[in-house]
């Protein structure tokens, strides 16, 4: 549970982000129970936001499902990256894997593509509580809070990711891969559904195939 301390500021920011998800989901007509169940099971901010905004703008159920699944497709390679750290029986590995989200994944990275199980799970538990709790607060307080964008809550997640990114640029190669990933993602945004640019950006990681 070493990840706990590193994850405290992240959990506070995630709480704020979750409150805004609750407000947006309520405004999208999802009720109270459905968004809460979504936070408990899906536990991934950007995908849940995408689903809520598609539903809120009348985009339809199928489009909401596709958007959320595409945005979460990055968890397949993320899951592979943490696999060596995930020990124990199948059920234990399955449950531990659910605590890996962007924030705990960044905190759990101890360099060189290696991950600490303790840090992943410690940070994951804290961020999970913040996400589910924040969702509940947002859902119940939606009437009092108004539009979350009024408070700039839509930049909480990307600014948090910027803070996490700083610790990840540990080599020239990592910097080049990050810049290339941004270029691929932004190039594809106008042409592809949300989520596809992200999964395409991971192609930049193939730079790692070269030894130097």
């Amino acid at each position, binding site marked *: 549970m070493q990840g706990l301390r590193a994850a405290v500021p992240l959990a506070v920011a995630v709480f704020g982000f979750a409150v805004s998800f609750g407000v947006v989901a309520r405004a999208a007509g999802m009720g109270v129970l459905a968004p809460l169940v979504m936070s408990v099971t899906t536990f991934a901010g950007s995908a849940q936001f995408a689903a809520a905004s598609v539903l809120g703008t009348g985009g339809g159920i199928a489009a*909401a499902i596709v958007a959320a699944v595409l945005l979460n497709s990055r968890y397949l390679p993320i*899951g592979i990256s943490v696999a060596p750290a995930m020990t124990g029986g199948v059920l234990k590995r399955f449950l531990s894997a659910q605590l890996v989200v962007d924030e705990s994944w960044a905190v759990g990275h101890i360099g060189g593509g290696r991950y600490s199980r303790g840090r992943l799970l410690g940070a994951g538990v804290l961020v999970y509580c913040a996400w589910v709790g924040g969702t509940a607060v947002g859902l119940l307080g939606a009437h009092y809070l108004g539009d979350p964008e009024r408070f700039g809550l839509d930049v909480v997640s990307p600014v948090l990711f910027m803070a996490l990114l700083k610790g990840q640029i540990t080599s020239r190669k990592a910097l080049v891969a990050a810049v290339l990933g*941004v270029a691929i993602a932004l190039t594809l945004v106008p042409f592809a559904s949300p989520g596809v640019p992200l999964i395409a950006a991971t192609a930049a990681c193939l730079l790692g195939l070269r030894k130097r």
Partner: protein
Amino acid sequence: MSGLWLAVLLVGAVSMALKATGPVLLGGEELPAAMQRVVTLMAPTLLAALIATQMFGDGKALVLDARVAGLLVGAFGIWRKWPTLLVVVLGAAATALTRLAVG
């Protein structure tokens, strides 16, 4: 079952499966050396791409709006090594104020 609940349960099930595939199939085993080098670059690459799409993406459009203020303030604070939470709060405040000013 309503469409909403279908979406919630299906997205939840698929997300759980996506997260669990690597750990369940490959759990506890070392990745091949080449794969390990690829994985090393995943955190910086995906975080950078997430930042870019969340800052400049609006559906299928690329836009510059009040979010840029949060990006700049956030970047400055991170460069100055301010505490993470402070940076996040100031970034959100910068975007909120810009929205208020630009209307």
